[in-house]
């Protein structure tokens, strides 16, 4: 087991009120496995990723309970120096908008080399050489020239490759990819996905792929977890979850993806996603669910196992 998250709860404080953005969350990522974490905006998926990387802003978000085990070591409350051995080294993060996270006044090569010099103790010359090799592996032509350019001179797809090159150079074991292709065109998206898939196959890397795009995730994730209001409501092998969805939210999401070839109404989910600071009693999906009964407004449902590794948290799972 590479990453194991047990009963994790993360809370935010806003206007003197504390509320959970991640709640009793359990998750496992095995070696060379791709997990797709799917949810709509505001469901807490990025907060989860930030918790794993200990990137939550102090005074704004904090881990209330639970543990995050990476190779058996608990990352929660780890001190800064121990953390920096892991963060950016063993675990890498790829962001949705690479442009925001790369230094605009530093060349690509310097930024890549800096990471390697810090984590691998290479000299600058050595680090630059490795960086160029990594960029070449990722299909960037004339990488020797590209390393002298600044972020604004590269396209979105190329910048995303730079971010992946950082992870590659450090030989990370886990990549957390947070909507890495959302800002890219479909054909560039396909290239980036092919790269991620080859990292898994050839280097045994594990990837936690966070996205709102169910069809996209279904292309390559081994297992999938559906997140709603800070909780995982359904998880299991990708094909199983998508072919035999059990949670009403998963079912509704899948319905809303069915597009006809003539203009007909798209099935929608009634109501709106509750605000994380103001979640309803009982099941968080209750007011939007057709199956909701009395118990759904009283208690949050327990996790129900359906069949090998396929779980749903719903009072009305039909087997």
């Amino acid at each position, binding site marked *: 087991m590479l990453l194991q998250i047990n009963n994790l709860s993360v809370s935010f404080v806003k206007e003197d009120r504390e509320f959970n953005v991640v709640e009793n969350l359990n998750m496992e990522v095995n070696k060379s496995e791709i997990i797709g974490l799917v949810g709509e905006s505001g469901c807490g998926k990025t907060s989860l990723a930030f918790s794993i990387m200990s990137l939550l802003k102090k005074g704004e978000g904090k881990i209330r309970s639970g543990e995050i085990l990476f190779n058996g070591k608990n990352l929660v409350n780890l001190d800064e120096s121990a953390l920096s051995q892991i963060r950016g080294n063993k675990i890498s993060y790829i962001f949705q908008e690479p442009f925001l996270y790369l230094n605009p006044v530093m060349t690509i090569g310097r930024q890549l080399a800096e990471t390697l010099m810090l984590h691998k103790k290479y000299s600058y010359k050595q680090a630059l050489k490795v960086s160029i090799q990594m960029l070449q592996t990722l299909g960037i032509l004339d990488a020797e020239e590209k390393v002298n350019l600044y972020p604004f001179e590269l396209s979105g797809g190329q910048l995303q490759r730079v971010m992946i090159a950082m992870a590659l150079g450090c030989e990370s074991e886990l990549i957390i990819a947070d909507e890495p292709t959302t800002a890219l065109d479909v054909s560039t*998206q396909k290239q980036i996905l092919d790269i991620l898939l080859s990292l898994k196959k050839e280097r045994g890397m594990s990837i936690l792929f966070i996205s709102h795009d169910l069809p996209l995730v*279904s292309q390559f994730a081994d297992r999938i977890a559906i997140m709603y209001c800070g909780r995982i409501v359904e998880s299991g092998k990708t094909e199983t979850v998508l072919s035999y969805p059990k949670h009403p939210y998963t079912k509704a999401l899948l319905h809303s993806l069915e597009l006809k070839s003539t203009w007909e109404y*798209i099935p929608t989910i009634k109501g709106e996603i509750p605000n994380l600071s103001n979640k309803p009693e009982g099941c968080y999906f209750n007011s939007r669910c057709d199956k909701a009964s009395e118990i759904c407004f009283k208690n949050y449902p327990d996790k129900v196992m359906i069949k090998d590794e396929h779980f749903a948290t719903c009072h009305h799972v039909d087997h």
Partner: protein
Amino acid sequence: MLLEVKNLKKTFFIQGGSKSKGKEVHALDDVSFSIKKGETIGVVGESGSGKTTLGKVIAKLLPPESGKIIWKEKDITDISEKKNLSFRKEMQVIFQDPFSSLNPRWKVGSIIGEGLKNLTLNINKDSLEHEVLNVMKLVGLDQKMINSYPHEFSGGQRQRIAIARAILLKPEFIICDEIVSALDVSIRGLIINLLKDLKDKLSLTYFFISHDIKLTNMISDRIFIMKSGKIVEILENGDIERTACNPYTRSLLEAVPTLQKV
């Protein structure tokens, strides 16, 4: 014909960086087509294909370098904005990002009503508010929120505000530039359904710019596929996976992820 464009051209000059020289980009390269009233036209292409430039040039937000724009049999290419107030009412644009297209310091009522206020002489306050409330109801916004600010709304609701602002002027033609790309799937459905309702009620003509070829196929009568400033293929609505011939269109279709089930 409601709208005809002939041989539209637009070139941008991109400044060079530290190591590269500047270059010319042909955002529109000899684009011609015509659109009938009531049609829904989809425009699909990757970023940089010129689809947004095309929308802006048609809406006269950008001047073309050469070519003609003919609106209701009248050449409006060089006509001045002041002489052409009726055109501004008849054609409206809705933009991609509902977070940057709404003025954060204005109340929703003023944002929605601004166009009508500016383009109608002597409209009094009460009738303006009446119109705004009507249109808010039509697009499914809570009328009580007329005095709220944009930040109090979710992304989907903000897009409704932008739609309300556009249809308040009773336009005939609406350019929708990637209006659902920033939205979650469950919200995307609501907005696309709203567009359908409005089309049925107000007999609108849509110019739907998107990178999502499947969604665009569902709602469009014809799809223009754009690449490097040119329309490379025009597809009729239907089984486009069978009918698409152009290799670029085919590569777009193949890159779209489809749900993998057992």
